[in-house]
């Protein structure tokens, strides 16, 4: 692009492209909100359909989930720090905080999977009841989003490391930050609706 002399104001073009991408990504997050809303609705309908199996009160270990939650919340905070470093164009700090976020995200995912594994090993898998089907699908969909976020983080981090904080990497990291915070918000709802209400015997 740079070798061609042009009357186009390339910085304005770039800024317009960024504003389109940001709006598009916000719209995508709204559609993802609808997706999670549908899954929450399904969970709300089915949380009592235990079909003789255990309910949330018997299955959920609140202290464990609280640690999981704190790990994710802290990862959201460190992701914020990475974005602040991005504003200051401090590549080392961006990469450091991204790495911390990645590790925390991976720990969260590992804890979630080990929780799933423990439940399934006790015979309480998604096949057991309508309640457990909706539980595994709702929480698992969030986990799938976290997985995608981790892949994205790894790729964007590697690109930032190799190429530096170019305009396109700046844009992608900003979107990644939005995505990660969004997953945090969804998790707050999962923690409240699934785990807290479940433990209250509601």
């Amino acid at each position: 692009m740079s070798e061609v002399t042009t009357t186009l104001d390339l910085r304005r073009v770039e800024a317009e492209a960024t504003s389109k991408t940001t709006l598009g990504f916000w719209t995508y997050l709204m559609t993802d909100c609808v997706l999670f809303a549908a899954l929450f609705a399904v969970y709300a309908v089915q949380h009592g359909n235990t079909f003789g199996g255990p309910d949330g009160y018997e299955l959920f270990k609140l202290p464990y989930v609280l640690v999981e939650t704190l790990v994710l919340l802290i990862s959201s905070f460190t992701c914020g720090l990475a974005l602040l470093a991005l504003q200051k164009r401090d590549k080392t700090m961006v990469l450091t905080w991204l790495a911390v976020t990645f590790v925390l995200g991976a720990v969260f995912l590992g804890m979630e999977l080990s929780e799933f594994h423990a439940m399934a090993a006790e015979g309480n898998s998604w096949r057991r009841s309508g309640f457990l089907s909706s539980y595994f699908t709702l929480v698992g969909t969030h986990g799938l989003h976290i997985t995608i976020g981790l892949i994205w983080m790894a790729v964007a981090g590697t690109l930032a490391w190799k190429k530096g904080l170019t305009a396109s990497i700046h844009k992608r990291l900003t979107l990644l930050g939005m995505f990660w915070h969004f997953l945090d918000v969804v998790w707050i709802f999962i923690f409240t609706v699934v785990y807290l209400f479940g433990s209250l015997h509601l």
Partner: protein
Amino acid sequence: MIGFATEWLGRLSWHAFPQATVTRGAAIGIVLGGLIVLALITYFHKWRWLWREWLTTQDPKRIGIMYIIVSVLMLLRAGSDALMMRAQQATSVGTHTGPFSPDTFQQVFSAHGTIMIFFVAMGLMFGLINLVLPQQLGNRDVAFPFMNALSFWLFTAGMLLINMSLVIGEFSAAGWLAYPPLSELKFSPGVGVDYWIWSLQIAGVGSLMSGINFLVTILKNRCKGMTMMKMPVFAWSVFGSMTLVAFSFPILTVALTLLYFDRTFGMHFFTAGGGGNAMMYVNLIWAWGHPEVYILVLPAFGVYSEIMATFSRKRLFGYTSMVWAVWGIVFLSFTVWLHHFFTMGAGADVNSVFGIATMLIAIPTGVKIFNWLFTMYRGRIRFTSHMVWFMGFVFLFVSGGVTGVMLAVPAIDFQVHNSLFLVAHFHTMVVTGVVFGYLAAISYWFPKITGFRLHDGLGKIVAWCWSVGFVLAFFPLYALGFMGATRRLDHYDASLGWQPLFIVAAIGALTIATGVVFQIVQLIVSIWQRNERRDITGDAWDGRTLEWSTPSPTPFYVFTKTPVVTERDQFWADKQAGTVQRGYEDILLPKNTGVPIVVGGLALLVGFGAIWHIWTLVVLGLLGIVMAIIVRAMNDEPEYILTAKEVERLENARKRKLKEVMA
């Protein structure tokens, strides 16, 4: 050997290939047809051209044309499904059995509905939006050209998957919305429902991406001076429709996924036992399905608005009320889904609320109808084929609206629920609302796409065949519904006395088929006479909106300089004032890329693997998609600059060539 087979082939075996004569014929036809096309492309050495100009393009006009070609082919396929159903119901009476077995008949009606909605109506809609919307907004492209190509290839992957079911395996026999518990593994153990799930899932993701893309296009890609209230009404109706896409398609994704989980992983969302709840599926699918109807019809309303203003040579009556009517419909369409299952037993209070909400939709729709009619009032009307389509639409659509209000009364709905009365009603809305609109739109924007007009006399015959055929095909169904005929019957008793009406309906279907034949003739004749039908000015119909200010066919750079807008019908105002917006500027355009078609192909593999439980294929396909997206992300220069000088050169060459052709 068996271990190898289950590991690498999942459920796939030789038994998957069709056994019945009818399906075997169709399968052989599809495979042969495909092979002939491939052989022709190879014979004429067209692969390189196809790859460079079409398969890797990010030009919305080309993508739009490809959408329309795919949709028209699917219209022929699902249309022949319709003829098969009419043949069965006209002949399968008493001691006579029709040409098709019950199982084949069930697959036929399931495929008809699914293909018509997802791969005909949606495809025509997205095709037209691609062709028209950016130009109407005075811009060259959509907000995200790469994602636009990706949407198209996902749509195509879904289309290929649904047609593969004819050759490998079977299609769903559970109706176009696959209600559980019938669609659950216990009652539909084959791969049919899985084909249904995955072709919709893949196409649905493409639609969702298109929805986001066009929303951002409308909000961000308008030319200088075009405020929201100066947008053409077509753009407004696309805005409403795409808002519905963004809010409703995620619900479809969820419903399909949960059904697949039930069938594949033994979950209990909608199963009859295990704590499942089948009515939850029906709620989810209609929370998407009702808005879907408006997704399809709103852009068609936009088309009618453009056509009425152009062919009445008058500005559209009640622009502001048109905009408000769009948003009224958008809002209300999310509040009525329960009217699809009043008989669920939600109780009188709930049914009343949804019944009244449903009737309310007649108000904004009525506003639009009156606005179109008032646009004609004291206009200088040209009675072209587009006007014939509109007249057919307005009479029939109002009749469908009236039966819709009848169905909105829960007490009446309990009587005619699941009957042919319902079938007649929703075909009236979708065929005259959506199909008439998009067929009129194709003929309206045809010169813009190809550079020459379609034969209008033949176009009128087509519109008349469709309108008359429609009355013959569907009005008897209203009566049959009252007489107690339920939908999806493959056989009935002779003493019921239904056969004459079914025969009339079959004649109607044949009349529509005649219309389709005339359409093909019209296309051939028009191509034959293309030089005398050529649109030299770019303004084929004395139009009002910006797309008519570009040459026909629109060059890839669209505008030599993006226009500036001060009026609502800017092009009309320019013509009245005698001003022409001229000049050249540097243009930023997207480079071609093969990533979208590759991702589409990989999605097809993922879908195929998921249907046949070939998990290796699913994993490889998903990994491939991730890799393709990473490759795309590494590309830092996805665009190139076309300099003003180059645009001027191309433009002059275009004019020279046009002169030569005309001489």
